[in-house]
């Protein structure tokens, strides 16, 4: 197993927007190099437009880098070998409203290459793990935001990934739902899974992560370890404010 779940080496991503009078270019991330160690919880902090979602999409193969190299467990993110080891939860995931959680999970399980009894047991395990088994008869249209987030996590867990990539996993959730999700993520990390999550909530990142990357205008401004923010007056928040101002 590669010691790093993810490595970015001098990565740049520039978006091109075609227009009538030529294309407009926007650089979302530039000269970005970092690693995510296997088995660790790494957080990604930054203001809006700092490039957090771009990083998440680059490492799940939804975007291709303009320059530099992204590796996931030693493979290109678009390789099936990399994707088989990654579970992704986008921000505010959508599920067809008529689907029950089990039906949605069966579909995504099939797309993860599972079938037969293996698929059935993976769906049961993911529902049990995320507490969805109690809501098995409800449709997605009846779900609260917290329940949809659980379903999003369940689909990311189906194939037993070694790395979970979570874009704003607690965005818009109430305090109880946040506590549940936090407990769930801590449990997953205790099993040895690496977690890479982006958030606007510094306190959540502080509670969950052992290391935090701070992005400012597409560049990595700081990498902060837990011991550093625990020793700093004002904690992670003061380090973040200093980095972005």
């Amino acid at each position, binding site marked *: 197993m590669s010691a790093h779940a993810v490595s970015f080496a001098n990565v740049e991503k520039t978006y091109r927007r075609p227009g009538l009078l030529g294309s407009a270019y926007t650089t979302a991330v530039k000269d970005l190099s970092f690693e995510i160690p296997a088995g660790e919880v790494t957080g990604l902090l930054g203001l809006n437009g700092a490039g957090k979602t771009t990083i998440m999409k680059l490492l*799940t193969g939804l975007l291709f880098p303009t320059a530099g190299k992204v590796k996931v467990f030693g493979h290109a993110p678009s390789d099936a070998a990399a*994707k*088989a080891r990654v579970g992704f939860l986008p921000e505010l995931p*959508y599920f067809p409203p008529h689907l029950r959680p089990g039906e949605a999970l069966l579909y*995504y399980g099939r*797309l993860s*290459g599972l*079938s037969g009894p293996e698929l059935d047991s993976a769906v049961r395990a993911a529902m049990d793990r995320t507490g969805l088994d109690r809501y098995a008869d409800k449709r997605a249209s009846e779900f609260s935001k917290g329940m949809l987030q659980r379903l999003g996590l369940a689909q990311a867990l189906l194939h037993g990934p070694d790395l979970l990539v979570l874009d704003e996993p607690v965005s818009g959730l109430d305090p109880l739902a946040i506590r549940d999700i936090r407990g769930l993520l801590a449990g997953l990390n205790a099993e040895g899974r690496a977690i890479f999550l982006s958030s606007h909530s510094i306190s959540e990142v502080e509670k969950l992560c052992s290391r935090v990357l701070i992005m400012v205008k597409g560049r990595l401004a700081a990498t902060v370890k837990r011991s550093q923010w625990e020793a700093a007056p004002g904690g992670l928040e003061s380090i973040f404010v200093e980095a972005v101002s």
Partner: protein
Amino acid sequence: MRQLRMFRAVAFSAFQDGVRQRLFLLFGVFAFTAIYSSVLAGVMAVDQEGRVLADFGLALMELTALVYALFAASSVLIREAETKTIYLVFSRPVPRWAYLGGKLGGTLMTAALMLLVMAAMHLTLLAVRGYGIPACYGWALAGSFLKLSVITSLAFFVSLFSTSAVSTLVISGILWTAGHFVSEVRFLAGQAHGAAALALKTGLWLLPNLQLFNARDAAGAACALGPAAFGAAAAWTLGAFLGALWLLSGKEF
């Protein structure tokens, strides 16, 4: 085998979505109304009533299924990108051919079901008017399906570079209409000179010849669609599919 299972999962899901959509129901109501109105038109046709009932009904069925298939093909990729559903698909080891093929397959299965349901309505109305199954009816349905297959795959191709679902609908609609005038274009290309001839000859290469699939144009013993029709449909569908796949493989989300 694993990739084929993924293809099947996408196709079945697209089929289920298609059947569940209110759009499908709406077109069902429209189809019934349109086919029923063909009965009224048939009454006015006096001694050609049977022929008018059959042809008018078949044409309306084809148009209804066409509109449904084009709406579905032009919006499915845009909708999945907007709702981020596509993130949950392409962050998995799903090959893009399996996704695109599954969506095309699911849309065509829905359109085929729609044709069959409308055919059942049409034949029931004909029976009420005292007519049996018209000549070449099965071949006409097969021809309609082949046309849908060609034009739907072209719509998927167009949807991957057009800026909106509306422009996909318009371009695909133009291709469908022009595809019924290929022999006329060929005649004009033979008569024209210079740039006009070149433009018309280029157009002939770009237009699918949908007249090949009009089984009832050759009513009588010759109405069966030949291998050339099936071969042309397969070639156009595959060509458009490969073009769409090429565009999709470079697409970011």
